[in-house]
């Protein structure tokens, strides 16, 4: 399901880092040796085996991150991102696996489009990449895609992300049929008749500024519908980019009823509210929109408690000229791969709001489990999926620092704490 280009397996010893793996219940200052891409020893004063040695005193060594929500814009908008630049950004952000969305031009709704992407990834993908395929043909919400063939061709999961599956009937068929593939459904929950014309969260800010409102209920109503359908069909679903407190309630209610529903939340929804929109900076325009402070607090608590088990960047590159327009004309979306860990470390961990272990789990094991991907673990015999982080390093987010082809980050000019130093993905050093 995941594709990476050919790279040399790493032979390396990482010396003296604080090794922290919540899944393995590991927290110790030890050495880690990697032979031919596989973790072969964890302990004090390991032999170097004549490998390269990384002196990692004062650094954190943690399981590399998994991003369940990335737009690589390929095929169709290679001016905004390519498999090469997007995965380079992922590597710089500490990711060892990413899932790419199918809302490209053309849409990834056939085995031929998917197959050509997989071939491209074999040449270009620095970080193992899974391609999600569409739920409906052309993402029009009318007919199911050939899910069995798509799964055989390597589809990692299915989603119509960017658009909701408006028809409840089609959503039900998708749940019924996709179970044959063993792949999850990722759901963009939006009731379009309520969000239509919506630019920002419907609330005080939209009323004051005159923006068309995109109310919370436009999201939560669809989450409630899909939880109900998943319950009825006894199938698992994954709710993408949860933004509203009411959606969190709907997911928690699903959990209480035994529904297999997981949810993801983005760094921007965890760190910002619709107050940011007052700047009319188009890098604060995203779908779903930034919501109120109460929503933000509920999202943080849901991430802490595990009601939402994943951090997802919803990395959405846009061409400069498409964002340098009046707010209402600008497309939705911001980049996030290269800043996700640092901003969450700065805003949530350093401030004592969220334990570091919880953040690490939600950025790695949580998303891997949500889509049935291998969970990155620091354990002997496992392929190395590790990231070395300097928790003390401060760095300034600037346009020229990005590996992504686009620069539509809401963090431009901000100074963040916590910097990725080295990323090892699938046993290969991909960054640092």
């Amino acid at each position, binding site marked *: 399901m995941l594709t990476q280009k050919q790279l040399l397996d790493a032979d390396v010893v990482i010396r003296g880092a604080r090794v922290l793996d919540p899944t393995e219940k590991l927290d110790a200052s030890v050495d880690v040796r990697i032979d031919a891409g596989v973790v072969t020893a964890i302990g004090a004063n390991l032999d170097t085996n004549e490998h390269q040695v990384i002196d990692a005193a004062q650094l954190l060594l943690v399981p590399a991150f998994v991003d369940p929500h990335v737009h690589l814009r390929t095929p169709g908008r290679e001016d905004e991102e390519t498999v090469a630049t997007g995965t380079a950004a992922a590597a710089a952000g500490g990711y060892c696996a990413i899932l790419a969305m199918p809302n490209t031009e053309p849409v990834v709704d056939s085995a031929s489009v998917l197959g050509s992407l997989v071939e491209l990834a074999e040449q270009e993908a620095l970080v193992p990449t899974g391609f999600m395929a569409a739920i409906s043909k052309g993402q029009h919400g009318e007919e199911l895609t050939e899910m069995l063939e798509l799964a055989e061709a390597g589809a990692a999961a299915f989603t119509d992300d960017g658009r909701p599956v408006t028809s409840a009937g089609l959503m039900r068929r998708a749940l019924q049929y996709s179970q044959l593939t063993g792949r999850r459904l990722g759901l963009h929950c939006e009731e379009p008749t309520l969000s239509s014309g919506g*630019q920002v969260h419907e*609330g005080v800010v939209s*009323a*004051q500024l*005159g923006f068309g409102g995109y109310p919370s209920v436009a999201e939560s109503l669809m989450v409630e519908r899909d939880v109900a359908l998943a319950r009825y069909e006894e199938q698992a679903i994954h709710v993408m980019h949860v933004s509203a407190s009411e959606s969190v309630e709907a997911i928690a209610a699903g959990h209480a009823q035994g529904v297999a529903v997981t949810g993801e939340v983005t760094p921007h929804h965890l760190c910002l509210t619709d107050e940011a929109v007052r700047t009319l900076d188009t890098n604060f325009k995203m779908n779903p929109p930034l919501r109120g402070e109460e929503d933000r607090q509920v999202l943080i608590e849901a991430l802490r408690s595990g009601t939402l088990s994943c951090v997802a960047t919803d990395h959405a590159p846009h061409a400069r*000229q498409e964002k340098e*327009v*009046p707010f209402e004309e600008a497309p939705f979306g911001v980049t996030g791969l290269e800043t996700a860990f640092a901003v969450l470390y700065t805003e949530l961990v350093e401030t004592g709001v969220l334990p570091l272990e919880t953040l690490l789990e939600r950025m790695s094991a949580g998303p891997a489990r949500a889509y049935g991907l291998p969970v990155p673990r620091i354990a002997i015999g496992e392929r190395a999926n590790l990231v070395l982080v300097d928790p003390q390093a401060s760095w300034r987010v600037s346009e020229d620092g990005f590996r992504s082809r686009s620069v539509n980050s809401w963090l431009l000019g901000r100074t963040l704490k916590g910097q990725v130093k080295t990323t090892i993905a699938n046993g290969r050093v991909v960054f640092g």
Partner: protein
Amino acid sequence: MAEIRVMREDLLPPQQPPKRHLISIADLERADVERLLATARSFGRSLEREVKKLPTLRGRTVINLFYESSTRTASSFELAAKRLSADTMTVRSSVSSVTKGESLKDTVRTLASFDPDVIVIRHEQIGAPQLVAATVDAHVVNAGDGKHQHPTQALLDLYTMQEEFGRLEGLHVAIVGDVLHSRVARSDIQALAMVGAHVTCVGPPTLIPRGIETLGCSVSYDIGAIASADVVYVLRMQNERMEKGQAYLPSIREYAAHWGVTPERLRPGQKIMHPGPMNRGVEIDARVADSPDALVETQVRSGLVVRMAVLYDLLTQGPVNVANVAQIHEVA
């Protein structure tokens, strides 16, 4: 050949402070509003003279960039600039490169090559004036951006009310109609709240946005609420609100019956205002529109002096000495 002199950096003039713009009423404080209204009043007196042109902004350039159709605002800004002797031109999107697909940023950069002192912009999208202000080195005046703001309209409305009542503090203004889609309503509510007037928004629940009270007004769905107002401010009702897919209202007929401002719903002495253009028989009864209590043409006249005041204020940096304006006039 002239000698080339390299200036020492410490001999260079100090850096200019950031350009002042008028983009939102929220950018202003009460003192700014009062200063602008006072300047407008002195310009109002000057316009009573036989020769109406003042030399104040001679040599300055004002570009009006209108992406939306407009009669009164565009002509008002153009005449305001001309009355102050500024060079002015109006660029309309229908006859410019915009129709060739040029972006706002590029259009504005092109116009900026002419070194305008002020760019007045009207655009159908929220945020356009900010983009202009971020792109060029000129003062930017928002002449209406989407549903966001129309600050000079609010200032001319305040000016009109002050001239009529001699005060703003404590006035009760009822704003009737489609508040949801109205930049005029948003600017007026903010400006009126700032100077101590009371505002009530009146209209159907589908056209009053949730949370509008936070701008400093109260809300009523009952047209009866206009009875206690000193000023009934009627907003334009657009037909497209009844269209399929929008359906904010069942019909024009039902709107007119329940929220139309008719003589029967008014009491003597109440003043009527409207930003224009009016839909007679829809939001405003023709008898009301034509009554002596309707200040609609006064608003248009106020618009001229208020826009003169805004241009003058932006270009002369800081408070206006009213006496100076009079002196300038004497010279002219």
